[in-house]
Structures are given as structure tokens and as C-alpha cells.
């Protein structure tokens, strides 16, 4: 019989919730929590022999130590496949599952499988390197998600032929594999067929999918006439704040943003504004904050009538070490304020 080992966080490992997220890695013989369902789904051919449990914060903040400890647990153990999660939409857990799967697969050369919801940042971090199954948003999807991991695990162990990622149910790794078609249809026929479908506006499927970037629809251009009547708002990730940093925005990995009244100012001057960005030498921006928030130039365009004015607040945060998720959240919050204020034009300066 083949053997499997499962990784869980402190919550699913039944240690406890957030207050126990610092729980150090441990390994237990036998089945804990979701390991039971996994063992059941794997049937008679594969047995889950051990469950590894590690607190999400322990893995997050002492990652190297956590991974080395776990690799140490696994040293000398016989196992043919390694599972982690499912992590659903839990970001830290997803990242932990990704990190441990990658480490285990690199060191022990066994296949690893995990499962996450598409909103989990762990997906983008690890999809190119791992089999990450498309999981549900919450633990309500536990049974389905475990089943998907188990079924694919059995296929890997039995070395069955694998279908494309989309059909198997994991996030595409961007790997292109050549296959023999059955029945064989030569490329010239396939391409003409595709072209005809395209010409006739029928659906067709490309054989070389290009990973799609998540772009937003382009906002329509304003007319010069409109712009001459509109206030332009400035948003920056360059960390410009009033001296003293009243909102205590972090100098790196920011989770806060601030807005500062510039309605009576013509220019941002040294001694009143500064940058708190820890990702570059602040001297130039401290001497002249306009190099990041170009209020002086915007005032000039206001006087010329090119723009109606400058929105009374500028918005600021720090864009170094800031996760995309945090940046998106802050962006959403700022956008909501701007929409509320009727702002239609924004200059975003980044450093």
C-alpha cells in the first residue's frame, strides 16, 4: 500500500484558532481532522500515515525554521505523495500550503497536491510550480475539495495519463504539452477549421492559450473641455505625508493610507511635507516633495485653465513590500472616497 502525509494549519489540525497561530510544527501518527476524509477518499490503495500541523503565523514569520523542522520530521519516513490543505480562501494558510508543498517536492521528489480558492493569494504565488486544485471559499467545501485532491493523487500514483489542467480541475501551470490527437487531424485542417469558426462568429478553442492578465476596462478619455472644468486628484504610493506622519502610515508593507488637505497650498515645501517611504533614499523628496506629488505643476495648469483645479486632498500610502491584496483594498477605499466626491480624473504617482 502507498503512503501519504497531510499538512494542516493549527485550526484544521484542531489545536485552536487565531490565538494559537504561533503553534510550532508537530507531526502526529495517524489522522487528524481533514486527514480522515482524505484517507477515506484515497480508498484502499493509499493510506494517510501522518498529519503535520503548524500554526499559520509560525509558518509566516519563521518560515525557514518551520520548513526545516517539517522536512526533518519527514526525513526517513516512507511516503509516496504529500498533501496540504485545502486552504480555501485563507491567505496565510494558502501561502503555508504552497511553501511546504514546494519544499517537500524539491527535497523528496514526491508529488504534492494542495487546494485553494481562486481568491487565495497563494494561487498566484505557487500555481506555476504546484498542483493547486480549485477549491471552495470556505470549509463548507471541505469534502469536495478533499475529494478532488484525492482523486488526482490516485491518478498520479497510478501514473495514469493526465488531462489538461482545466479538465483535471487545478490551476493551469502555464505548461504546454504536446499530445497526439485521436483521431489525428493535421494542423492545417485544424487551423482552417478554427479560422472558419472565427469568421462565422462561432466559438472555438485556441490550442495555445495565453495566460490572461487581469486587466480592467480602460476608463474613457475626458474631453479637454471637461478636464478644464474638473478637479484632478493626486494619489501616490511614494509616501508623501505632512512632517510627523500624523496617520502613522507604515514605511514598508503599508496597510494604511492618509489624505491631506492641499486646498490652500501652491506648492509642497520642505519642512511641511516629507516622504516616509523606506524603499528609497528620501533626501530628494524631503527637499522638494513636489518631485513625487507635483502640486506646483498642477497649480500652473490650473492657472492656465487646462484643468479646473486640484482636488482638495491628496491621498498617500507607501508602496514597498505592500501586498497586492492590501494595495487593492486601499485602492478600493480611496476610489470610494473619490467617487463620493465626484472626482473624475486622477494622477497616480508611484516610486
Amino acid at each position, binding site marked *: 500500500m502507498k503512503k501519504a502525509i497531510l499538512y494542516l494549519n493549527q485550526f484544521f489540525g484542531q489545536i485552536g484558532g487565531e490565538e494559537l497561530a504561533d503553534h510550532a510544527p508537530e507531526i502526529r501518527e495517524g489522522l487528524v481532522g481533514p486527514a480522515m476524509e482524505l484517507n477515506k477518499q484515497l480508498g484502499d490503495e493509499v493510506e494517510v500515515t501522518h498529519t503535520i500541523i503548524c500554526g499559520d503565523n509560525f509558518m509566516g514569520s519563521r518560515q525557514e525554521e518551520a520548513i526545516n523542522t517539517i522536512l526533518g520530521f519527514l526525513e526517513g519516513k516512507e511516503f509516496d505523495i504529500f498533501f496540504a490543505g485545502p486552504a480555501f480562501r485563507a491567505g496565510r494558510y494558502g501561502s503555508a500550503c504552497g511553501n511546504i508543498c514546494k519544499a517537500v517536492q524539491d527535497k523528496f521528489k514526491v508529488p504534492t497536491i494542495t487546494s485553494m480558492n481562486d481568491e487565495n493569494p497563494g494561487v498566484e504565488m505557487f500555481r506555476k510550480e504546484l498542483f493547486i486544485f480549485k477549491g471552495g471559499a470556505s470549509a463548507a467545501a471541505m469534502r469536495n475539495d478533499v475529494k478532488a485532491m484525492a482523486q488526482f493523487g490516485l491518478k498520479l500514483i497510478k501514473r495514469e495519463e493526465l488531462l489538461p489542467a482545466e479538465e483535471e480541475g487545478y490551476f493551469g501551470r502555464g505548461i504546454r504539452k504536446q499530445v497526439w490527437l485521436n483521431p489525428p487531424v493535421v494542423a492545417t485542417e485544424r487551423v482552417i477549421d478554427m479560422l472558419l469558426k472565427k469568421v462565422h462568429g462561432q466559438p472555438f478553442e485556441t490550442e495555445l492559450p495565453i495566460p490572461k*492578465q*487581469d*486587466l*480592467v*476596462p*480602460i*476608463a*474613457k*478619455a*475626458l*474631453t*479637454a473641455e*471637461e*478636464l478644464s472644468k474638473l478637479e*484632478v486628484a493626486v*494619489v501616490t*504610493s*511614494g509616501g508623501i505625508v505632512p512632517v510627523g506622519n500624523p496617520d502613522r502610515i507604515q514605511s514598508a508593507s503599508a496597510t494604511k493610507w492618509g489624505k491631506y488637505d492641499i486646498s490652500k497650498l501652491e506648492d509642497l515645501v520642505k519642512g511641511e511635507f516629507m516622504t516616509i517611504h523606506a*524603499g*528609497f*533614499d*528620501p*533626501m*530628494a*523628496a524631503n*527637499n*522638494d516633495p*513636489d*518631485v*513625487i506629488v*507635483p502640486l*506646483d*505643476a*498642477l497649480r*500652473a*495648469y490650473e492657472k492656465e485653465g*487646462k*484643468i479646473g483645479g486640484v482636488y482638495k486632498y491628496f491621498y498617500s*500610502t507607501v*508602496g514597498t513590500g505592500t501586498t*497586492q491584496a492590501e*494595495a*487593492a483594498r*486601499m*485602492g*478600493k477605499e*480611496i*476610489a*470610494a472616497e*473619490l*467617487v463620493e466626491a465626484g*472626482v*473624475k*480624473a*486622477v*494622477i*497616480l*504617482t*508611484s*516610486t
Partner: protein
Amino acid sequence: MNKEIEKAGITIVQMANLIPVAKTVGANRMVPTISIPYPLGDPNTPKEQQWKLRYHRVGVALDALTTEVDEQTVFKVKI
């Protein structure tokens, strides 16, 4: 941030030094700046020259807001 603001229907232009990063994260209108620590004015040049550069590039950004684009676009600057 750019994307979230644009998603809200606001016309936005990003002034960035790392244009490839701005592109990757999905900015649609982009204007290059000259560096990370001083995007709009090199302190090693005279104040007047810094002002000219800043005034020019902010102008390009404002023009970008009034330019219809159908794909991610980097607007050209002269100074």
C-alpha cells in the same frame, strides 16, 4: 490601486519609473518618470530644469487623461 480606481470609472494615469511593473499590475495609461527617489525632478540639475521636466511630464499625464486608448499605453515624453 490604479486598477481599483479605474474600476470605479475614474479616468486615471499612472506616472511611474518602473513602467514594466505598472504594466504588469494593469495600469492602462502610463507616463514615465525619471527615477524612483525623485520621479519628477533630478536634484542634481538646476531648479529651473527640474521644474521644466515636471511641468512637461505632468502636462503629458493630463493629456493622457484626454486621449482615448484601446490598449495599455505608455505616453511619450520629450524631457
